[in-house]
């Protein structure tokens, strides 16, 4: 049994301009403890797919199972990090994390939740910033708090939608490393689904890359690098170069198709 099983999944949005099919007939299994990256050009449905796993989007047909059971809505076994900074602005960093902890462990005492919060903020390197309101933190720090908040509830599945998309290149790399370390420190028992535009990010993080085209999965690519990974080693390897060019050509294909489509227009 896979950790996550999606079968013939369709998602439709109904809005002002009628029905729009964002995902059509997606089937995908993700194993326990796997780190999967969803890659694809903008608008192909990555966030929509992740939204199904988050429990925020309802499939219009097909099934979505976690641990073999169909789910409705969000659940305590899953934690989410959004691209946008999603902290509550009226709470401090510590309160933000502790709030999430008390929502999952309802009978837990406040002091205990605070201790857990401090432990995870420590882990993401925010020891000196625990009592700051989120508005007083930089974007990178806010995203670290969001990661600490997600990890503090010890989820089985971590869902991340371009969590580092809005950060500068250097902060991004630091946080990627930190994420892998944190995941490794929990014996890589957590299943991670991570959405990104960035091919290098996907190659550094993932066990498997799911490349999407609009509405569909186009290709699945295994990333064989051993763990723990170091960026410099990976970047120097031959495999990296070939995987990278494969992914780039997929991206490029996608774009040239689009240009062809537009050609009919012009």
């Amino acid at each position: 049994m896979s950790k996550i099983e999606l079968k013939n999944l369709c998602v439709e949005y109904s809005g002002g301009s009628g029905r729009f099919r964002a995902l059509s007939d997606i089937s995908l299994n993700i194993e326990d403890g796997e780190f999967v990256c969803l890659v694809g050009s903008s608008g192909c449905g990555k966030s929509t797919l992740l939204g199904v796993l988050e429990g925020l989007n309802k499939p219009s047909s097909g099934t979505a199972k976690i641990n073999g059971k169909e789910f409705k809505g969000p659940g305590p076994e899953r934690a989410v990090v959004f691209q946008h900074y999603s902290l509550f602005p009226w709470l401090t960093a510590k309160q933000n994390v502790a709030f999430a902890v008390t929502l999952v462990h309802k009978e837990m005492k406040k002091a205990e939740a605070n201790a857990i919060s401090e432990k995870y903020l420590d882990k993401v390197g925010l020891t000196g910033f625990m009592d700051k309101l989120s508005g007083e933190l930089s974007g990178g720090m806010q995203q670290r708090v969001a990661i600490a908040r997600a990890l503090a509830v010890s989820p089985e599945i971590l869902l991340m939608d371009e969590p580092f998309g809005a950060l500068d290149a250097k902060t991004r790399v630091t946080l990627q490393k930190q994420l892998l370390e944190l995941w490794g420190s929990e014996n890589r028992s957590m299943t991670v689904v991570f959405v990104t535009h960035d091919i290098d990010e996907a190659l550094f993080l993932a066990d498997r890359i799911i490349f999407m085209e609009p509405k569909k999965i186009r290709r699945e690519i295994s990333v064989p690098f051993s763990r723990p990974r170091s960026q410099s080693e990976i970047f120097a390897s031959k495999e990296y170069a070939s995987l990278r060019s494969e992914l780039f050509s997929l991206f490029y294909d996608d774009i040239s198709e689009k240009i062809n489509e537009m050609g009919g227009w012009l």
Partner: protein
Amino acid sequence: MKTLKTRILTIPNLLFTLLLAAVLTPQSRLAAVPGYGAKMKSPLVFLCVIVIIELAYLLRSGKNEEKLKVSSDITAFVFLLLLAWEVTTRKLDIAPRIFLPPPENVFNVFVEDWDFILQGWARSMYLLLTGFTLAIIAGVILGLIVGWIPRLRRAVFPISKAVSAVPSMIYVPYIVMLLPTFTSASIFVIFLGIFFPTFMNMINRVGTIDHKIVDTARVLNAPLHSMLFRVILPYTLPRIINNLTVMLSVSVMTLTAAEMMGADRGMGYYVRKFSSEINYTKTIAGILFIALVVSLLNWFVDLLKKKLIKWNY
């Protein structure tokens, strides 16, 4: 030496001196005309008020240069107004003193009538704060719930919009007549005046809440009561508190209007009673007192604002 000079020779200090001089020099000759000039009361209370303002001005502290300037300008304006009042009444007597009483007499009322005024104040505050608090609590909680349920929101919003468009002043006489006691009537009137705007504001705010906030709370597995009271309520809190100032003015307005119709005590009653007795000295004192109370309440709300809203968004 120079700093001392610039600190003493300020506009407020200059006006303070002029004001003192005006109060301490003789009144106009018109005062002797029978029926024209009413008898002057002791200027002691008025002088005390002037000196207190001047002391507050001299002892004011603050690091912010800009704020110091503003408070100095405010003091100057207050002194200027008092000076104009003093000059047009006691010095020039441009109108008979029953219509345009000098400030000495008006301020002296606070000492003459202190027990009456204080009783009225306590009465009014009781009505005001009861109606106000009940309305805010009910408006916020009901607005939270109605705003959160789309079907309810779409049905209730247009109705309460229509109801709240009617100024509460209009139904004050009817409600004062309808309800058995004046206490219940005025609390109810204040309640209505505050409830609907708060309720609508809340519905609006909850209905247009940033979906990211809601999504975040949902993926954190927040149950309904946490969603409402630990996420949406704090999200809307700044707006509620910002509106308190306006709401307070509205409730003072409705209460005074109500008191002028049916009360036997209270700040508004005081003003009505003496204006119908053609005692404008006391009428003006009553009006000044209401202004003072409202300013103090607003100041208190501002303090609350600073305490409660620490984040900007």
